[in-house]
């Protein structure tokens, strides 16, 4: 469960990025964060991920008040949250399987376990047979699948996706969406920031609409 309670965020340039944000996302939900560029979507994701701290208010993720945890506890929070970035953030000098296995290596998983899980997840994300490819040998859609594989392979309960289709063509975007739905059906909570309204309206999932740092609409009836 993710709870935002009276959250405000003021950046050092005095720009108010978030203004009194309140919402709750239940376990296993698929939620879109929508709004124009600069609305505050990424700021919300970064707050959940404890990349930044709120100016005031409280953020609870899986019963952890993330704005109050110590710095050395941040890695353990992040191990429960998979983050899919618009620019993928995969390592160019490592193969597909090496990129995906990092998430398990940091957990201290054994080699045998890593091999089994990596093979399994690469099949799920549709990269079977490309285990030893380097990112430069893959299409953008395939690179995003590597990032998704890395985000879901560990003990993650929540997946945060920041414009995961932003750099992709429509067909590949739908492929990625279908993959995220599949992951959501497997029980993981998905919070996806996007400004692609076609996707949002077609998917019929819950939507939180942000504008100028405020929640202007939160559709709980899964119709937007």
């Amino acid at each position, binding site marked *: 469960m993710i709870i935002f309670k009276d959250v405000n965020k003021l950046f050092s340039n005095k720009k108010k990025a978030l203004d009194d944000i309140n919402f709750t996302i239940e376990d296993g939900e698929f939620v879109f964060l929508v709004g124009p560029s600069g609305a505050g979507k990424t700021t919300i994701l970064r707050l959940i991920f404890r990349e930044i701290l709120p100016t005031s208010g409280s953020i609870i993720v899986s019963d952890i008040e993330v704005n109050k945890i110590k710095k050395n506890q941040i890695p353990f929070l992040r*191990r429960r949250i998979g983050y899919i970035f618009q620019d993928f953030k995969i390592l160019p000098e490592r193969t597909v399987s090496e990129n995906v296995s990092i998430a398990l290596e940091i957990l201290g998983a054994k080699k045998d376990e890593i091999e089994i899980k990596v093979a399994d997840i690469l099949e799920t994300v549709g990269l079977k047979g490309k285990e030893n490819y380097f990112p430069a040998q893959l299409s953008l859609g395939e690179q995003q699948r590597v990032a998704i594989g890395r985000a879901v392979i560990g003990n993650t309960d929540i997946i945060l996706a920041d414009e995961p289709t932003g750099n992709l063509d429509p067909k590949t975007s739908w492929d990625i969406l279908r993959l995220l739905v599949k992951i959501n059906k497997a029980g993981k909570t998905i919070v996806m920031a996007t400004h692609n309204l076609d996707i949002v309206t077609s998917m019929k999932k819950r939507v939180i609409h942000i504008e100028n740092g405020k929640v202007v609409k939160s559709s709980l009836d899964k119709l937007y």
Partner: protein
Amino acid sequence: MQTQSPSVIQRLRRTPYQSLAAILTMTLTFLVASTFFVIAAYSSSILSYFETRPQIVAYFTDKKDENQIKELEAKLKETGKVSSVRYISKEEALSIYKEDNKNDPLLLEMVTADILPASLEVQTTQPEYLPEINQMLQKEPEIEEVKYQQDIVDILLAWTNSIRRVGIVTVLLFSINALIVLVTIIGMKIALSRNEIDILTLIGATGWYVKKPFIKQGLVYSLTGALISWIITSLALLYISPALSGFLRYIHTLSFISYKGMEISVYPVSYGFIGAILVVNLFIGFAVGLIGSLVALKRFLK
């Protein structure tokens, strides 16, 4: 399918020139450290050897009989300033001579007990008493020669202290140089891995997980340097060992460490001493590698 992050060796092989520069600098540093360690060990052992020898030896003419010498011995003991006095008869002098020159039959020929002088070997309780005892012996009749070793000990002590001082300063300077090189190279590696570090941090890697590969690389550089320098030093020591036997011909053994029946000698060169050089190298190697990596991480990994 490789599912593991690159090993330390794979990381080092990806930057061969940096690795070579680091290992060569480390090797040079440890070679200097090993050389000074060996010189310091030899000078200390030689000093200890002379310190444990009789500090004054008085040689008598044949006119001084054994009773007179025994009287002198008693007189010396009465001063209360003498810790031990040992009478060496002509016969004992011959057996010592034979032992010292057992490998040289030419020197053993024609030498009999008659031509060797009887002597008294004296050790004082305090080094300050040496001049007084020396003068007392010099005044005795029928003394052929008095050998007074305090001069040798003083000279050796001065040399040993100088070697230690120069050694410590030189090793410190080389260690600082090695540290700077290590910090620079590990710092470059951190800068090159910035993207990887950022991603690892974002997906939940702990600080230790991120730092571990850099610490391992620093340790591999310095421990490799330490091992190479140990091999070079040991081979050089074994190579010059025959030359030392000519230089130290009257000394049977130079002990480096002697504890509860266990003895490590620097001469003849023992495996224990070669092992001690390895331990010193690995200790300094570990310290330089660890400190260098940690400083680089502190400096470049904010």
